[in-house]
């Protein structure tokens, strides 16, 4: 064992659970990691979420907060109150108490968000990028990023919009920017993949919807950023907490597990909603309490039509990624 070894404990694989690694990460942090392989599997996140909820619910003395992501959870604690080993033992108990992921039913709200494509604010962000950062950026040729996204995926702009609107997007965890969630497509036929801006943008409008790699992000406030932009949705964050939806905190999304679903509308409608969220504070968000029944979801993934569609799209995508300019 070398002096830099950081895996301080493990929980062996069992059933559909991969080996769980406990990595030291400082005197106030432990990272709980699922398996050794860098993989992107929503099933890991479902399990992570179930464990995270139990960790939070069990009110462990000395636990400050958790940061769940797709396949790891960063646990922040006060080691003068609970020792790292005591904390690991508690988390192990919780992990042992969780059923196999196939039997899980996960609380997951469905939030419906209106979106306007090719809106003026996204156009402005792209124009600013061309002017201030990279005049020859191949991803901005049409004044938006949609053409480039279509190229990368070997499909049309209409296909890109259709995919965005068809699938539900699942939040594996919030972070990077206040209130921002990292959303993944639940329908594998809609798994677009695009490179990130290089170098990044200086400005992105509040409400911009972007994708980088296979992950979607809704910009909660105006900021820099690197995701390719689709268009603009309504506020998903409010610092001032004036609107009743934000009375307990500035966040629309929960730490993880929410699904979002987009419906197309006009820019005028979007701007109108901004006014009703931020000024008149009377917009009613469309949020349904719901659940993900993992068994049903797996059945959907195994449906021959879904499998075939996903394979066909992946083939087009491979062709597209060969011909699209690199960033």
């Amino acid at each position, binding site marked *: 064992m*070398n*002096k*830099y*070894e*950081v895996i301080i404990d493990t929980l062996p694989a069992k059933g559909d659970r991969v080996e769980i690694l406990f*990595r*030291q*990460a*400082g*005197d*106030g*942090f432990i*990272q709980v*990691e699922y398996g*050794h*392989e*860098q*993989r*992107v599997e929503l099933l890991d996140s479902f399990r992570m979420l179930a464990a995270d909820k139990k960790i939070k619910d069990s009110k462990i003395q000395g636990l*400050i*907060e*958790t*940061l*769940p*992501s*797709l*396949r*790891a*959870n*960063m646990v*922040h604690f006060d*080691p*003068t109150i609970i*020792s*790292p080993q005591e904390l690991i033992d508690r988390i192990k108990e919780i992990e042992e108490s969780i059923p196999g992921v196939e039997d899980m039913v996960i609380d997951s709200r469905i939030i419906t968000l209106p979106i306007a494509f090719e809106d003026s604010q996204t156009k402005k962000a792209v124009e600013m990028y061309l002017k201030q950062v990279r005049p020859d950026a191949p991803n901005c040729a049409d004044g938006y990023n949609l053409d480039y996204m279509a190229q990368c995926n070997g499909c049309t702009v209409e296909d890109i919009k259709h995919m965005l609107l068809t699938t539900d997007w699942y939040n594996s*965890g*919030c*972070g*990077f*920017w*206040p*209130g*921002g969630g*990292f959303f993944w497509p639940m329908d594998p036929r809609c798994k677009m993949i695009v490179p990130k801006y290089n170098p990044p943008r200086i400005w992105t409008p509040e409400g911009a919807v972007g994708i980088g*790699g296979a*992950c979607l992000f809704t910009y*909660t*406030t105006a900021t820099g950023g690197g995701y390719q932009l689709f268009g603009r949705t309504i506020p998903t964050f409010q*610092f001032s907490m004036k609107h009743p939806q934000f009375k307990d*905190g*500035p*966040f629309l*999304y929960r*730490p*993880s597990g929410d699904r979002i679903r987009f419906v197309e509308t006009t820019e005028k409608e979007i701007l109108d909603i901004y006014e009703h969220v931020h000024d008149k504070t009377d917009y009613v968000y469309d949020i349904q309490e719901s659940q993900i029944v993992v068994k049903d979801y797996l059945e959907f993934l195994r449906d021959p039509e879904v499998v075939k569609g996903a394979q066909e799209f992946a083939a087009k995508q491979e062709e597209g990624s060969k011909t699209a300019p690199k960033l």
Partner: protein
Amino acid sequence: MIKVINGGIEVLTEDWPGRLGYMGLGMAAAGAMDNLALQLGNRLVGNELTAAGLEIAGGYCEFAFTRDGVIAMAGADMSPTLNGEPMGMWESVAVKEGDRLKLSHFGEKGFRSYLCVAGGIDVPVYLGSRSTCLFGSYGGFEGRKLAKDDVVKVYPTELAGKDGRKLNPKYIPAYENDWELRTIPGPNSAPDYVTEEGMDYLFSHSFKISHNANRAAYRLEEVPDYFWAREDGGKGGSHPSNIVDHGYNMRGAINVTGNTPSLLIADGPTLGGFVCVANVINADLWKIGQGIPSRDKVHFKLTTTEEAIEARRERAAMFQADDLFL
């Protein structure tokens, strides 16, 4: 109340331990860059350790007091003067309505100074803290640095007996130009992400702090290519510093993007797609805040979790020591 005559480089309202509990929603803890100086300053003026003070980076600023009070300057010595007369560091001083406090700039050692006021700075508590997150423009005083003509409120408090305290010199922190940061490897270390030789490099080299050093991240000099134990980041990306997005061990993470390490501190990102190879222990976070951008260096000392926990306990005990003041 304090009126800003000149806001200087960067003056912010900060407290400690900052805004805990929101990292999972994308909000960093923020908080004082040098929590040791802020807390000692708070003790000098008779405040709770958690009271907010003004964090002054660089210097070049001036304040006027619009009410009688007791103040202390803690941290880097920026040659403070009160109505033109030199004022001591690490001691509590009575001020009268109309008095002017002026700071020159930081000197040979240390970069941030704290103005602590009896009663504490009165700004709205936002999500549990009075700290400013400058990176996200929220918290503290309107989410921004102070500017000329701003008037900052101070909580009213009894002033009697709070002035004339001097910190026992043995508790005045030692300032350096090559700061030793006790550091624990992880979560991404040798052998799976970084080579043993790479970690040896990390723990034996002095890294100059870049001019790109602010409250979110202190960028350091690059590590060599032999740092990496893998060819690429797999599903996380093409560079070995890439990883499937994960939460950062913030504050204190040594995060590496490409071959460039950065210390992620107060306002840093909470989550992202790059490895975190180590973490500066909680008791040494204050030193980062005193590191002068574009001049000072840092070096990392391999430390165990047990030593780090002991250092936390010693620090907590120090604030309550009988001989804290002369």
